[in-house]
Structures are given as structure tokens and as C-alpha cells.
């Protein structure tokens, strides 16, 4: 195989570390307010504005830095929400089986066959695109996957001795699920987390690019929407936000692939 089997993982972690640091220390490295209008619009990169300004005079470097916050916030929180929801559903479906399983998996399938972007469009049409609305919306596009993964694990674990033993001893269902099943079913889900976060970040960026995101948030996708309008005048608006987005997603994919490689072939 490779000479450095974990090169991908290491590169990914470093890149991710840079993005996280940028998000955390945005206020320090980019002291200008990203939403502050008033400066000269569409300036190219200069000592005063490191990456230039956008059409309303907002500093691009500040927007990139604070945009990291938005991307990571939305990506991580929505993934957390979808994972928790998926876990709960998957454990219940796997453990109780039959009617519960049938019902929950049917609902999951509905969210799986509708393409994620369309679910997002549908929900934004009804509920709007503010940041704290987007997080549950994106979570709804992602919960079926962890649910199915966990369910498969639970189905195979359910008949194992330690579970049967716990039941024989009169343990309550919830207790069994929490103490015995969940810790064993969790690892495969964990492996999938970086991919989920990457997917969520791309979805938020896509929605902002389409103009459906939160106009009050400094989002990389929103920057790219401006980039499209000022393609000829301001190449910096197109280049830097896209590069930031790609680097972040690449980091997450490398980490995901690295984890896959270390733990052997995993369920889909």
C-alpha cells in the first residue's frame, strides 16, 4: 500500500486544525467586523484589506475568518443533532423491531429518497432560512444514515449473550439500550461523522449561495453568490471563499478516509 498509510489522515487533521483555529480566533486575526459596510467597494487585495473588499465595502478576510465559524457551527451542530436523532431512532428500531422498526424505517426512507437539497428548499420555503432554523433543517437531511447504521448494529447485537443475560436479569429496556447496546453500536457511526459534517457544510454553503441562507451571517456560500455577480470586476471574491470551502471539506474527507482505512472496511 502507501509508504505513509496515515498521510491522508495527518494532512486532514492539520488542515482541519487550521480551520478550527481560524474560527476560534477570528476576532484576533481579523479585527474588522465582517458585516460592516461603508468602505470602498470592490477593492482588490491590499495591505489594508488583505483579501480585498466586496460590493458593499465589507472586508473579505474578515468574512472568510468569521465564515469559518458559521460553517463549523452549522456543520457540527446539525451533525450532532442528526446523529443524536438517528441514534435514538436506530436503537429503538433495532431493539423493538416489528411495528416500531417498520414505522421508523419508513419515515427514514422518505427522508432518504427525497434529495437533500430539495428537503432543504421545501423546509426553507415554509420556515425561512435563518441560521438557527437551518441547523435543524440540515439535520433532517442527515439523520437516516446514522439511524440505519445503528439499527444494523443493534440487530446483530440484540441476540448476543450479554444482552440476553441482561434481560434475563430483569433489566429495563432503556437501561439495556443505554448501557449495553449503544456503546457497542456507536463506533461505526463515529467513523461516519466527518463525512456528515462535510456534507452539512456543503449544504449550508449551497443554500447561502442560492440566496436562501441567513443574510445576517458571514457565510462562505453567500460570498460566492456575490462572486458570481461581480465575476469580472472582482476575481478575489470567487477565489478565496471557494478555496476556504474546498480546504475545509477536503480536510474532513481526508480524516474520514483515514479513519476508514485504519478501522477496516465498514458498513456503508
Amino acid at each position, binding site marked *: 500500500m502507501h509508504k505513509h498509510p496515515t498521510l491522508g489522515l495527518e494532512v486532514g487533521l492539520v488542515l482541519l486544525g487550521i480551520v478550527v483555529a481560524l474560527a476560534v480566533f477570528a476576532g484576533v486575526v481579523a479585527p474588522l467586523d465582517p458585516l460592516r459596510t461603508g468602505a470602498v467597494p470592490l477593492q482588490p487585495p491590499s495591505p489594508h484589506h488583505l483579501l480585498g473588499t466586496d460590493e*458593499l465595502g465589507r472586508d473579505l478576510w474578515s468574512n472568510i475568518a468569521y465564515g469559518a465559524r458559521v460553517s463549523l457551527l452549522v456543520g457540527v451542530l446539525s451533525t450532532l443533532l442528526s446523529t443524536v436523532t438517528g441514534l435514538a431512532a436506530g436503537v429503538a428500531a433495532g431493539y423493538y423491531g416489528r411495528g416500531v422498526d417498520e414505522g421508523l424505517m419508513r419515515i427514514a426512507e422518505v427522508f432518504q429518497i427525497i434529495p437533500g437539497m430539495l428537503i432543504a428548499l421545501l423546509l426553507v420555503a415554509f420556515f425561512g432560512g435563518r441560521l438557527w432554523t437551518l441547523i435543524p433543517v440540515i439535520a433532517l437531511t442527515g439523520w437516516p444514515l446514522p439511524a440505519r447504521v445503528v439499527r444494523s448494529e443493534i440487530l446483530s447485537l440484540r441476540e448476543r449473550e450479554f444482552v440476553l443475560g441482561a434481560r434475563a436479569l430483569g433489566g429495563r429496556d432503556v437501561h439495556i439500550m443505554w448501557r449495553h447496546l449503544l456503546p457497542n453500536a456507536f463506533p461505526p457511526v463515529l467513523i461516519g461523522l466527518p463525512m456528515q459534517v462535510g456534507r452539512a457544510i456543503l449544504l449550508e454553503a449551497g443554500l447561502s449561495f442560492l440566496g436562501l441562507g441567513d*443574510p*445576517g451571517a458571514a457565510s462562505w456560500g453567500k460570498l460566492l453568490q456575490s462572486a458570481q455577480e461581480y465575476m469580472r470586476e472582482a476575481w478575489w471574491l470567487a477565489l478565496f471563499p471557494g478555496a476556504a470551502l474546498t480546504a475545509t471539506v477536503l480536510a474532513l474527507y481526508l480524516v474520514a478516509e483515514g479513519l476508514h482505512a485504519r478501522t477496516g472496511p465498514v458498513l456503508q
Partner: protein
Amino acid sequence: MRSVTSRAVLGIVAVVLTGAPLAVALQPARFGGALVVATSSDPGTLNGGITTASPAHTVADSIYNGLVQLDAQLKPTPDLAERWTIAPDGRAYTFTLARDVRWHDGQPFTASDVKFTYEQVLLKYHARTRGGLESVLESVDAPTPTTVIFRFKRPFGAFLQRADVTEAPILPKHLYEGTDILQNPHNATPVGTGPFKFKEWTRGSQVVLVKNETYFKKGLPVLDQVIFRVLPQASLSMVALERGEVDYLDTLPPADVPRMRASKAFTILPTLAGPGGSFCINTGVFNLTHPPLDNLKVRQAIYYAINREFMVLAVLGGLGRVATAPVSAGVRWAHNASLPPYPHDVARANALLDEAGFGRGAGGVRFRLTYIAATPQIHSAEVIRDNLRDVGIDVNVVPLEFTAAQERTFVRKDFDLAFVSYCNGPDPDIGVKRMYVSSNIQPVLFSNGASYRNPRVDELFDLAAGSLDLAVRGKHYREIQEIVWRDLPYFWLVETFRDVGFNHDLRDPQYWAGNIAERAYWVKPR
């Protein structure tokens, strides 16, 4: 030769015989062909009688006619009406209509179409006609198939300039009578009397019109086809113009104007008028029924907080000026030039809000407002939001597509702040009155969105319309502006100009109006 006279006659004949063909040959040849116009939004509807929105009129104004047409100086000239007379007391307008005019489906056009359009369509659904005429128009009569008489309750001076196709397109009675006007299928497959006939509409993409071979104005139109291409991105429509993919752009992005002027391939013309109206002011709308906007100090504070010079620079690219009165400075005889200004003064704004009792709470926020923004106007929204942040007002911007934004603002009235480009028109009675009269608080697009009521203002508008003397009318309009400036139901931001740009080989587009292509022609074959 026999006599001097004979020689002279022969000489003249000779000159004429050789000169005439020479003169004709020297005149630029007129070619038809197609004209491709870029427009930034899908029209939404092709019935110009139920909306004043410019995307709709950009297309619809070539399909229909009005009684008159406005020339480049915005003076009325004949359109469907050949001539007209105004009664000495100013209370009756009699129009004699052109003969042998037919609808695109072959039916004859008559005065009853005019009567029907005014009574059943314009007075119900067209914001400027409804706002302006409803209270003064007494009756519309069609005594003969080619005569229409408008009778007014009071002497009315402001009628001719609102009888063009942008303000009052005439619709076919035989297709609209007895139907639900708003749901009539001909709103999408229009039948008009105009120079171009509807061919097809691919939503979100383009509208194709073809030449009306039996247009009542002989020799017109010259063009064979007009295609309206929907290109939402201004930058890309620029590229399309330069590449020849489109021929005509009704709003040039300001940043590109100097470069286009320098190029010999295009004609650039400035104008203050257009299919959406003329003398337009970007206006912020306060919903006076939603506290805390019912508090005058709050409204004043908001007005002080906004950096309008920056809006002219960044949002309009320099193509505009700060608004100094509710009536555009372009309508000189009615504009009030001595109103106390509202400069950009953040300290004053903060002080007013403190005085009004709205202290800063958590995170420095005094209160929240919901702002409805149409997506083509999102930049203004972002500047306003940023400016209001400075005074502790947290603005929730809701971006909606243009028509959806207008519906939410005017029909649902579900907003705190809204943003509308209200066009004054060449006469304040046309486009200003509808914003302020209490009778126009209706679920009609572009009406009195603020829900402003002031009986004195209502009275003054009637007085102003009731005179034929511009000096008297001007005095009344100036008084209205004083009152309204004090009451602040709206916050008037910037007046907008635009530059029209088109291929150099195109001649005679009526670029100040909606029906740009009626007389236009190419000087080279396309």
C-alpha cells in the same frame, strides 16, 4: 428653350428626378429582424393592467396600447386616440379613437374596450390608476364606437400623462368580461392591439413576440421579432450584450458605463423614465400599524441612521442622488426644495431612541424589526441592516423573490420595514398620491403600504388635482410634502437614474418608455 419659367420648371423637375432617388438612397435603410432585450426578472404576468411592476411592463407594453403615448419629453402624443379635447372647466376629456384597429385575434377594437378596462380592471387592480382616479373619476362613457368621454367630479389636470400604455393599457373586453380578471388565462397568453403579438413564454427564460402585420399605425413596426431574455445577473447580461447574445439592456451596471461609452459599438443613453414609471425613488416603508414604528421618534431615528450617500455610491454605483423630499427633484414644479434635511447622524439617532424610551438590552439591542427584501434589492437591505445595527436595532432581513416580496408587503401587510421603488411619474398625482391617501390602503401592489392616514393630506391631494394651474398645484404639493416630511410614514432614500445601452446599429428605440420597439429598426441586416 422658350422662357426662363420653362427652363426653371425643367430645371426643378430634373433636380427632383435625380435628387429624390438620391435622397432615398442616402437615408439609412431600415431592416427588420429580431431584437433581443435582456430583462432582469421574469415578467410574472403579461397583463399590464393589474400591476405596475417593471418586469411585467417591460414586456406587456409592446403588446398593448394606451390612449396616448408619451414622447421623450413625456408629453402626450396620439396612440389609440387620434385626438382629444378637454372641456374648458377641466371636468371632461373626450377622446376620438383611431379607426380600423383590431385586436390580435381579429376582433375589432372599440370604445367599449376602453370603458371596460377602466371600470373593471384599472380602477380595481392598477395601483396608480386606482390610487389616483378612484376618488375623482365620475364616469367613463362610450357613446360611439370611436368616442370615449371621461367625466370627473372636479376639474382634473393630471389625466393625459397617465393614459399611456404603462399607466393604462387597454385590454380586450371580449376576452375579459365576466371572468376572474386575476386568473384569466390571457394574463399569460395576451391579446392586445399593440405592435407585437404574443408568441410564447418560457417561464424564467424568455418571452417571444412577433410582428403584428395588421398594426393600425401604417408602416410599423419594422422589427419582425422581439425576444425578452430573462438574465437575473446584471454582470452576465453585460457579457451577453458585449457578445451580441442580446442587443438591448435597459439598465446598465454603473461600473460598466464608462467602458461602454468609450466603445463605438454601443449607444448609451441616460433616462429617468421606464416601464416601471418615471422619477423613481427608492423608499423605505414603515408599517405604521406595528409598534414601535407608530412612534415618530423611532422613525426619525431610523432615517438619521441610514448612510444614504453610501447607498448612492455602493448600491447605485453613483447613478442616483440622495432624496431630499417625497417628490422627486426631477418634477421641478412640485418638488419642495426647502425641507429640513436628515443627514447621516448616528449620535442623533441613538439619542432619539433613548428619548423614546427604548433602551439597549442584551447584546446592545433595543428591539427587532422584520424587513422584507426583494432579492434584486438585497444590497440596500444589507446596508440598512448594517446601519441600524449601529443604533441598536436588530433587523431580520427576509429575502423573497420580487413579486413574492411585494405580495407580502402589500397584500399580507406582514412586515415592519419594506423597500419599494415608488415611481412618481411626470405628475405627482400619478405616482405620489397613491402612497399617502387613506383611500388607497388596500391589498393592491404598490399602494399606500405604510397605512398612512391624514385627512388634511387627502384633502390637499384633491385640491391639487382639481386645478389646471401649475403654480396652484405646486403650492398644494409643497404643503403636502411639508406635512408628510414631518409625519414620516416612509423614509425616502435615493432617487435612481439608469443608463440604457444597446447595439449601435439599432435606431429609434423608445428607451424612456415601456414599448421600446414600436418604431425601432436596424440599419444593417440581422
